[in-house]
């Protein structure tokens, strides 16, 4: 079966933090703000570790792209059970403009280099909500993809994936090697136990530069402006149901 699984983990602003837009409207404030692993990436790591515990895969490799701080995110994956980590060094302007296109090129290159036969990613990141990296990676590798997975099962040399789609659940069977992206209900990620956190310190994280992988980080996108959503306007109180219906008709809503 799949010998090696690559799991992408992204360092994002913690979901509980109140986001503030920078005064110059070029982005959001990240300095001094609490960051953690993207929740969907946690689910991806959990799934990979469970596959290893079921002896369906031999090695789980956690990958993250970014500056020095992403090593914390990789350590968290290691504490959850990943075997080793790869830190793809991207910083400064390159990091600011890093998006799904570049990351998918990096992951595709790593998958080939590491001879991975399964890539598990979160379905999207909670900062940019792109929902593209998994799909692009599969396309670059010409691998099948099982996105929005709420269940993954190994059946011989194929993967059965149940996907959460608008109409309900879709079950597909895809050949390995493949890319899977994790949706919310795929699993509940474990808490890292204190012994595992200690063990994670000894696990290896190798550093790699995008250039070494032959990846061009130039972005084809330019962010023009970032604004907060408009303030919610005050509502209007009405006395009777008739008033309500009247107001709704006035506003052209019914």
């Amino acid at each position, binding site marked *: 079966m799949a010998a090696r699984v690559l799991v992408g983990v992204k360092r994002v602003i913690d979901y509980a933090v109140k986001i503030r837009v920078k005064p110059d409207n070029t982005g959001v404030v990240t300095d001094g703000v609490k960051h953690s692993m993207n929740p969907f990436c946690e689910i991806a790591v959990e799934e990979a570790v469970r596959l290893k515990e079921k002896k369906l895969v031999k090695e789980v490799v956690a990958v993250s792209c970014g500056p020095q701080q992403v090593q914390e995110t990789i350590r968290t994956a290691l504490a959850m059970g990943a075997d080793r980590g790869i830190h793809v060094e991207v910083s400064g302007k390159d990091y600011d403009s890093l998006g799904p296109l570049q990351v998918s090129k990096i992951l595709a290159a790593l998958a080939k280099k590491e001879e991975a036969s399964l890539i598990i990613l979160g379905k999207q990141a909670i900062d940019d909500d792109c929902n593209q990296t998994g799909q692009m990676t599969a396309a670059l590798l010409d691998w099948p993809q099982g996105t929005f997975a709420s269940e993954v099962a190994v059946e011989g040399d194929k993967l059965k994936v149940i996907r959460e789609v608008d109409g309900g659940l879709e079950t597909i069977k895809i050949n390995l090697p493949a890319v899977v992206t994790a949706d919310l209900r795929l699993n509940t990620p474990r*808490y890292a136990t*204190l012994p595992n956190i*200690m063990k994670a310190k000894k696990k290896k994280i190798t550093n790699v530069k995008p250039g070494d992988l032959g990846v061009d980080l130039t972005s084809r996108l330019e962010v023009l402006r970032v604004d907060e959503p408009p303030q919610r306007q005050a509502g209007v109180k009405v006395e009777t149901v008739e008033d309500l219906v009247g107001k709704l008709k006035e506003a052209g809503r019914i």
Partner: protein
Amino acid sequence: GLQLKYAQERVAPLVSEMDENSSMADEVIKSLFELGLMGIEISTEYGGTGSSFFSSVLVIEELAKVDPSVAVLCDIQNTLINTLMSNLGTEEQKAKYLPRLATDMIGSFCLSEAGSGSDAFAMKTKAEKHKDYYIINGSKMWISSAEHAGVFLVLANADVSAGYRGITCFIVDRDTEGLEIGKKENKLGLRASSTCAVNFDNVKVHEKNILGKVGQGYKYAIGMLNGGRIGIAAQMLGLAQGCFDHAVPYTRQRMQFGKRIFDFQGLQHQIAYVATQLEAARLLTYNAARLKEAGRPFVKEACMSKYFAAEVATLTTSKCIEWMGGVGFTKDYPIEKYYRDCKIGTIYEGTSNIQLSTVAKLLDQEYNS
């Protein structure tokens, strides 16, 4: 950081209920073990986490931010029970108990009695020697975690004629005949931590269940409590910080007279003062822990940290209720619980007066040369 997430997600929702019912939820106990938090310093060879005393201090602080009762369970297990067993146990004792203590068994420490708290050596529980076993008779009081403990470290006097030099530490399994867990106290605070009387009625204990040496129990108890008080300092610190972290955001939202109550200078000065005291308590605690870990003398600093952190917890919680006004006074908000919980900090594991007396005694010695 990672522990805080567990505490916030799994423990926090149960805090109010556990307090109301004076009962620790089974799932909290189970998850503490599962996360390796009950055997922090136990060596990995016995199934423990193999981490440091400082790690224990940090874990206790993080847990206390959410629930000081859960923190004290973790504190007693790590700083008292596990420490005694690891330092004094024979290979046989360690092999038997350390793996259990790390994975599924809670330990309780039985020192105090109705007639002996600060005056611990005035204990009346006796251990009568017969050939190769002892018969223990007496009553211990105020025993934390007794409701769930699987093993008890009992201080009893094996030679009354020698006074406190007869006090011996015995390992007594819960299911030993004659050991009875008495009623649970109905307490002001730390309610989810069970506090019971433990009665010993002709409890037979083999001499191989003596921890360390006969007559050295008093020394072990004092020695271990020195480290234990840093753990309590950490608990009080976390308690104060957790309370503070709930109250300050409220002051930033609550508007009166057209501005945030935080914006009134009176409030600002009080909040800043408390924050400074908290920081001082933190540094005292971490420094005491650092000294202990480095093998340097630390008793004075440990006493100072426990005494000070308990005072700061009292100050902080009291002020937080005031800052939150009416809502601070209701059980709908978590603040009043911290206020109730903090009081024990000035009492257990050495009262504040005992801490101060110890510091004074050490200062006296320091100036001796």
